[in-house]
């Protein structure tokens, strides 16, 4: 990756406390497991209760019967909590050759490869991180992992935690609420503008790439922040379920952008609930890139609660062989003059399936609200599938809603045109695909855009012919 990677000598493996803290819950989910997670983390009583209640709700809720096929997902086969030191026990030899090759092709330094593959639990970029940390501290910004925040900022934490996504929201938010671990916690004080994107990547915490991470971001009035999570390298995990919850509060006049690029191994069910609430004149933007995984179900949502609040979701999804990306957005217009934009770009190839699924809701109070939806799909061959499933709920007549959906194939004419200038079929296809997702990549921080392009090129190899 193109980030300021430290020298190899700078990082160390996270084995230092293995003798005291090796801990891994038994497979499957029982009340005992939930209690044990909370006990291991030495959490306050209210959090244990929160978890236990969520656990009950998880059990009582049926599996969703819509979206992707979840029949093969076996909750009993999953390990719900592994303490960090334990995670680092995977050896480099166990990492599949395919993943290693991908790392090489993406030009990721070896030290970082090991971190990403879970061989080393810690990826130390202390210098970079500490400089930033100091700066943030001076501004009063809190940026830490969620477990630490619960210990150190309990009151603030408790005020917002689980408030925009209650455990009962859906089966997977209930699951996450019962077993969550890691994730990021950010608080940006009033009128504070954080200029540099905050990146989960720099945090020294083995849990930030966890299975059930929980992220909570509060952007106070007039403040602004851009948070970036993930990276384009394939996330190698032996666990087959990733179920995160991301809650964001954007207060009056505040701005938040949340950028995600994730590239899961193709055995992973990626079932994520992301929701933000936006107060008056606040802006919430989700920039969401979904690659890899077996099935992704993810519909970043914005509750436009205050007058003039704005929401945007800009997403791309790429589905290859055996993959289903069921992704989209939800915009709930609950106040006057709120506006939203949804731009969804999907690519399917080699029999992959992409579904855009979205809801735009206009409540009774949404006078003068506007929404623009644009769904573009590019299908690369005849085996691949795309679907567009938009729901609109309109309870107010004084609104405007525009929806444009376009499905295209890489056309013979386009290929002929590019090739007639000497460009090979492979390169021509790649140019067309890159051009297609350009509206997304141009929104990414530079180094991520470079990686994204490299990754798409890599994904496109062998797609022709």
């Amino acid at each position: 990756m193109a980030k300021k990677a430290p020298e190899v000598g700078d990082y160390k493996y996270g084995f230092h406390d293995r003798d005291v803290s090796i801990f891994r819950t038994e497979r499957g989910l029982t009340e005992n497991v939930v209690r044990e997670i909370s006990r291991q983390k030495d959490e306050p009583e209210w959090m244990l209760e929160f978890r236990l209640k969520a656990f009950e709700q998880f059990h009582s809720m049926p599996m969703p019967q819509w979206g992707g096929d979840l029949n093969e997902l076996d909750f009993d086969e999953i390990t719900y909590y592994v303490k960090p030191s334990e995670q680092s026990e995977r050896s480099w030899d166990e990492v599949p050759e395919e993943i290693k090759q991908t790392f090489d092709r993406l030009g990721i330094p070896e030290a970082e490869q090991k971190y990403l593959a879970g061989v080393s639990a810690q990826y130390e970029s202390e210098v970079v991180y500490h400089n930033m940390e100091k700066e943030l501290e001076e501004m009063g910004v809190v940026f830490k992992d969620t477990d630490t925040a619960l210990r150190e900022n309990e009151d603030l934490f408790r005020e917002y935690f689980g408030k925009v996504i209650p455990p009962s929201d859906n089966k997977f938010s209930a699951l996450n609420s019962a077993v969550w671990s890691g994730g990021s916690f950010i608080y940006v004080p009033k009128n504070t503008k954080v200029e540099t994107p905050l990146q989960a990547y720099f945090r020294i915490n083995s849990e930030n790439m966890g299975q059930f991470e929980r992220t909570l971001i509060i952007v106070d009035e007039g403040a602004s922040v851009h948070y970036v999570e993930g990276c384009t390298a394939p996330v190698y995990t032996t666990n087959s379920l990733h179920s995160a919850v991301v809650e964001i509060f954007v207060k009056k006049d505040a701005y938040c952008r949340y950028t995600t690029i994730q590239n899961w191994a193709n055995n992973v069910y990626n079932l994520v609930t992301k929701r933000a609430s936006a107060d008056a004149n606040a802006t919430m933007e989700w920039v969401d890139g979904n690659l890899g995984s077996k099935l992704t179900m993810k519909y970043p949502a914005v509750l436009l609660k205050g007058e003039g609040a704005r929401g945007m979701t800009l997403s791309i999804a790429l589905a290859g062989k055996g993959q289903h990306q069921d992704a989209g957005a939800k915009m709930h217009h609950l106040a006057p003059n709120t506006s939203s934009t949804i731009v969804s770009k999907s690519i399917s190839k080699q029999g992959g399936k992409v579904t855009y699924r979205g809801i735009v809701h206009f409540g009774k109070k949404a006078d003068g609200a506007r929404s623009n939806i644009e769904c573009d799909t590019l299908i690369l061959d005849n085996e691949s599938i795309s679907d567009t499933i938009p729901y609109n709920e309109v309870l107010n007549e004084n609104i405007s809603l525009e929806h444009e959906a376009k499905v295209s194939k890489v056309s013979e004419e386009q290929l002929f045109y590019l090739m007639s200038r000497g460009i090979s079929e492979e390169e021509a296809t790649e140019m067309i695909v890159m051009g297609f997702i350009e509206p997304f990549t141009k929104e990414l921080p530079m180094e991520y855009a470079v990686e994204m392009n490299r990754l798409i090129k890599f994904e496109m190899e062998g797609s022709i012919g």
Partner: protein
Amino acid sequence: MAGSTLEIKDLHVEIEGEEILKGVNLTINGGEFHAVMGPNGTGKSTLASAIMGHPKYEITKGEVKLDGEDVLEMEVDERAQAGLFLAMQYPSEISGVTNSDFLRSSINARREEGDEIPLMKFIKEMDATMDDLEIDKNMAQRYLNEGFSGGEKKRNEILQLMMLKPAIAVLDEIDSGLDIDALKVVANGINKMRSDEFGCLIITHYQRLLDYITPDHVHVMMQGRVVKSGGPELAQRLEAEGYDWIKDELGIDDETVGQKA
């Protein structure tokens, strides 16, 4: 070496089972400008696309050779790399790919890896060529042909022609949709290419382009064949008298393909 030679012999081409070209013969040498004229529906554009290898067109008989090499055996990109160029009547639009990125990729596609055109050299050359063609500079950063007017698309084709410097170019109705000022600009650009190293096949059904570009040879196509060839005077006569005299001379009622002579 004084340019390349493109030889088309007894070329038969089908599209979706229907024969469009029924034995075309043409030879274009470096230094020569050929015009292929004819009313609509006589197979002119099919000839252009078939030479470049459009996948819709099936060659059922005949040969196309560039300096003795079998063009029909080559993929489209290989034909371009061998020195052929087709300025298209309807250039494709490619969203998200800037004109200048596309052009640079095209130039580099003909060069060895490690010998890519230096960026500054490319920019200077593109700027100068855009000036020649009176193209607005911001077109370099616009997406390839997306939202271009008909005239802008045509100029863009000629920009590519001038930047890529092929050995043999086929220009498919490069004049259609151009007003007279744009036509002059485009013709100027093409005339600038004139050299022993460059041969050109200009397809048009208007004579007016030939007021600005003087062809060395003029061919008339009807019913999927070249039915008459001559010098520039043939174009002048066509301008003055139209096509009917040729039809009378050859006993043709309907000049479009699908009709038997």
